[in-house]
C-alpha cells in the first residue's frame, strides 16, 4: 500500500526502466521476500535500505537471476524480464557490483572487464576493438591506477571496485546495482565513487544503491525503498523523509524492547592490553576490561577491530605489545587462550565460525571435547545431553542435535556459535559482529544474553559497526580508526555524533 502511494507521489513522469512487482521468495521455512516491489528510473538513484537479513541481497539475487522468484513480475523497459542467471541478466542490461569483488586477480584489467563479453572474431579475441571499448569505460572512471594491462591483483581495493564498475559500463548496462559499495573503501575512494555514480546518472543509467549508511544515501540517492524482515516497510523521496523516520521503518519496533536491560556491576580487572600492534593492524591499542564489563569496540570497516580481537585470541600474531589475562601472560595460540578463559565468536560464520558440514553437537562441543572423555573415548550420550541443554538455554530451533548446522537459519547458527563459547566456560567473551545477518528477534535475545553474562561476572568485548546496539548494551565504548583505539569512555560520556566523529577522524 505505502509503496504504491509513495511512488505515485514521487514525481516521475516517465515509465520506470526496471520494475519489480510483488516479488515473493521462500527458502524452506523462511519467507525471504514477501510482496516486495522496487522501481528504478533512468538517470535516478534508488536506495534500497534495510538491516542485515532484511532481504536486500535476496531481492538482488532475484534481479540477477541467481534465484527465481516464487511469484511476482519483473519488467525491464516494459518487457517481461526473466533472467536465467547472472550472464543472462548482464546481456539484458542489468549489472551488479557486489560488495565482495568477483575478479580474477591474475588477469589484467582489460581481461577482467571483458570477461564473458569478449570481442570475438572467428573465435579469437579481437584485441584492438576490445581495447577501444575498455579505454572508453576507463575514461569515465578516471583513476590513475587503471590501465588496461595492469594485473588486477596489484590494484588497491578502490581501483578493483572500479574494474567491476567498468564491467557494467562496457556491457552497456541500463540498470546497475551497487551492493554496499563503500563498506571496504577508504574515504577518498568513496568520494570518487559518488562522482562516478553521478556521471552514470548523467548517462541515463538507472541505479539501485544498497546501503545502511543514511548519510551516504542522502548524498547519492533520490528515492528510497526500505525492507524489513523480507517485507516492504516503506518507500518515498529522500527529501521528504527524516533520518528518524527511516530508522523507524528499518527497525520497526521501539528501541526499548530490542535492547532489554540487565543490571550488572563492574569489578576487578581481568584483561589488560598494552600497545598491541600487528602488521598492518592494529596500531598500539591499549585498553582494560573488568569483570562484569561490556566493552564495545566501534569503528568503520578496516579500522582494525577484528584484527585486535584475533590477536587477543591468538589467531594472529602481534608484532609488539602485551596481553595480560588475569595478571598472567600466555602463549599466543587459540588453545592457550581458551585455557586462559577466552572465547571467540567470529564475524565470518560460514568461513570460520562454524564447520558447516558438521552437526550441531560437533560444532557446539568442539572447543571442549576433552570434558567428555573417559578412558580416551568420548561419552556420546553425555555430549548429546549437554548439547540439548545449551540448545534449550539459548532457544536454538532445530529438529535434533545431530542435524547438520548448515540447515539452520543464520540466527540459530549464531546461537550455536555463542553456545560453544558458553560451553567451554569462557570468562572473557570476544564477540565480533555477533548480531550481523540475523533477525531482529534473535538480536534481542543475544543482547539479553550478553547482559546476563555480565551480570554473572563474565566480561565481554563487543565489536560492532551498528552504533545503536553498542550504545544500548555496553558499559564502555572504545572507538577505533585506522588501526588506533583513539578514545574509550563510559557509554554515558559519549553521544552518537561524537563517536562517529572519532571513527571517521584520522
Amino acid at each position, binding site marked *: 500500500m505505502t509503496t504504491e502511494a509513495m511512488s505515485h507521489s514521487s514525481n516521475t513522469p516517465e515509465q520506470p526502466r526496471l520494475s519489480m512487482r510483488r516479488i515473493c521468495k521462500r527458502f*524452506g521455512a523462511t519467507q525471504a521476500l514477501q510482496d516486495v516491489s522496487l522501481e528504478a528510473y533512468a538517470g535516478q538513484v534508488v536506495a534500497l535500505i534495510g538491516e542485515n537479513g532484511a532481504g536486500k541481497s535476496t531481492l538482488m539475487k532475484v534481479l540477477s537471476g541467481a534465484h527465481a522468484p516464487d511469484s511476482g513480475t519483473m519488467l525491464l523497459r516494459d518487457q517481461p524480464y526473466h533472467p536465467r542467471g547472472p550472464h543472462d541478466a548482464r546481456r539484458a542490461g542489468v549489472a551488479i557490483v557486489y560488495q565482495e569483488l568477483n575478479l580474477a586477480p591474475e588477469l589484467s584489467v582489460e581481461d577482467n572487464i571483458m570477461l564473458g563479453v569478449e570481442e570475438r572474431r572467428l573465435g579469437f579475441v579481437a584485441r584492438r576493438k576490445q581495447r577501444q571499448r575498455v579505454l572508453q569505460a576507463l575514461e569515465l572512471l578516471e583513476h590513475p591506477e587503471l590501465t588496461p594491462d595492469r594485473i588486477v591483483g596489484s590494484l588497491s581495493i578502490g581501483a578493483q571496485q572500479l574494474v567491476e564498475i567498468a564491467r557494467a559500463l562496457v556491457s552497456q548496462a541500463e540498470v546497475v546495482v551497487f551492493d554496499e559499495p563503500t563498506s571496504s573503501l577508504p574515504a577518498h575512494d568513496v568520494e570518487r565513487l559518488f562522482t562516478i555514480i553521478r556521471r552514470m546518472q548523467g548517462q541515463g543509467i538507472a541505479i539501485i544503491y544498497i546501503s545502511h549508511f543514511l548519510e551516504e544515501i542522502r548524498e547519492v540517492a533520490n528515492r528510497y525503498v526500505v525492507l524489513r524482515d523480507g517485507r516492504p516497510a516503506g518507500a518515498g523521496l529522500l527529501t521528504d523523509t527524516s533520518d528518524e523516520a527511516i530508522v523507524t521503518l528499518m527497525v520497526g519496533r521501539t528501541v526499548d524492547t530490542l535492547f532489554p536491560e540487565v543490571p550488572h556491576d563492574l569489578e576487578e580487572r581481568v584483561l589488560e592490553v598494552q600497545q598491541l600492534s600487528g602488521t598492518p593492524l592494529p596500531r598500539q591499542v591499549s585498553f582494560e576490561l573488568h569483570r562484569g564489563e561490556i566493552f564495545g569496540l566501534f569503528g568503520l570497516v578496516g579500522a582494525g577491530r577484528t584484527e585486535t580481537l584475533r590477536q587477543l*585470541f591468538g*589467531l594472529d600474531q602481534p608484532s609488539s605489545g602485551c596481553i595480560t589475562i588475569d595478571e598472567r601472560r600466555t602463549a599466543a*595460540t*587459540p*588453545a592457550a*587462550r*581458551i*585455557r586462559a578463559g577466552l572465547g*571467540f565468536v*567470529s564475524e*565470518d560464520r560460514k*568461513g*570460520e*565460525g*562454524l*564447520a*558447516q*558440514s*558438521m552437526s550441531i553437537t*560437533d*560444532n557446539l562441543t*568442539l*572447543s571442549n*571435547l*576433552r570434558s567428555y*572423555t573417559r578412558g*580416551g*573415548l*568420548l561419552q*556420546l550420550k553425555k555430549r548429546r545431553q549437554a548439547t540439548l541443554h545449551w540448545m534449550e538455554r539459548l532457544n536454538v530451533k532445530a*529438529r*535434533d542435535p*545431530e542435524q547438520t548446522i*548448515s*540447515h539452520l537459519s543464520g540466527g540459530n547458527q549464531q546461537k550455536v556459535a555463542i553456545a*560453544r563459547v558458553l560451553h567451554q566456560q569462557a570468562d572473557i567473551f570476544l564477540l565480533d559482529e555477533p548480531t550481523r545477518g540475523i533477525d531482529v528477534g534473535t538480536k534481542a535475545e543475544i543482547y539479553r544474553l550478553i547482559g546476563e553474562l555480565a551480570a554473572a561476572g563474565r566480561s565481554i568485548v563487543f565489536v560492532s559497526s551498528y552504533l545503536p546496539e553498542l550504545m544500548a548494551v555496553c558499559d564502555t565504548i572504545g572507538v577505533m580508526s585506522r588501526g588506533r583505539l583513539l578514545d574509550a569512555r563510559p557509554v554515558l560520556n559519549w553521544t552518537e555524533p561524537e563517536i562517529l566523529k572519532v571513527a571517521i577522524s584520522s
Partner: protein
Amino acid sequence: MASVDTTQKNSRDRLWQALQSLEPLFALLMVTLGFALADQVWGQGRFSELRNFRVVLVQAAPVAVAALGMTLIIISGGIDLSAGTASMLCATVLAAMLSSDYSITAAVTCALLTGAVCGLVNGLLIGLLRIPPFIVTLGTMTIFLGVAKRVAGGSTVFVDRQRMPQWLNDLSSTMPPDWQGWLPRIASGVWLAAAIALLVAVILRYSVFGRHLFAIGSNESTARLCGINILTTKVLVYVLGGLLIGIAGLYSFSLVKMANPVEGIGRELKFIAAVVIGGGSLNGGRGSVLGTLAGAAIMGVIASGCAQLEIQNSTQDIMIGVIIIAAVTLDQFRTRRQENA
C-alpha cells in the same frame, strides 16, 4: 500434537540416515548378485563358490587396510598420492631384510616403521611448509619409489620360501590352516583387516582425535578457532595412515613372496577409489569405515567376477571407473536434495 509429529519425523530421519550409511553395502550386494547371476547364466558357476569368496577377501584385504589409512587422511581434508609407492617401499624393506638374514621380528618392525616414517615426512612437509597435500605427496611418491629402488638394488627382491615364516604366509593364504578352530576358515590377514577396521571406526567415532579430523577436514579455520592443534593432528593422521599403508605392504609381500618397487606405482589410486566409492569426500570432512570397506570389496568382486566370466581386463577397468563416477554423482545428487529440503 506438534511434538508427536516431530518425534515421528525425527525417528524417520534417523532411520533414513541409518539406511544412507548402509548404501555402499547395498551397492556391494548388488554388484555381487549381478555377477553371481551372470556367472550362473554365462559362466561356469564358480563365482558363487565359497572358495572364490575366500580369494576375493584375501585380495581385497590389502586394499582395504591401506584405504582405511587413506580414509583417515581424506577425512582430514588431505590426500596421499605416495601411498602406493610407500606401501611397496615397506614391502621392499621387508623383503630385503629377510633375504639378508635379519630376523623376522626386526624385518617386520622396520617395514612398519618405514610406513610410519613415510607418513611423518608427508605430515611434516604439509604441516610445516603449508604446501597442499596433493603437491607434497606427488613429490614424495617418486621419492619413495626412488628409495625403494635403491633398497631393492635395482630389481625385484625375491625371498627364499624357507625364510618366510608361516604366519606371514598365512596372512594371504586362500586355504588357511584349521588352527583357527572356531573361526571360519578365512585367511588371518582378513581377520586382521577386520580388527583394524574396527579400531579405525572407534577412533573416528569415539576419540577426540577422530572428531578433530572431521573438524579440520570440514573447516580448518573453525578447527583452529576451537583450539585444535592443526599441526599435531595433521602429522598424526599421516603417521597413522602411513602405518596402515605399511601393513598393506606386508600383505602384498605375503601374497607374491617378492617385492618389486615399480609395482607400487598407481596403487594409491585404488586406495583413493575405495574411499570415494564408499562416500568419502575429497573436500574433507566426510568418509566412513563401512563405506571404504564396501568400496574395497566392490573392486575385489569386480576383479574376481570379470576373471570368472573371462571378461577382458580392459572391461574391468572401465567398470571400476564407471562405478567411481556413479558413486560420486549419486552422492552429490543426494546432498543437493538434502540442502534444498
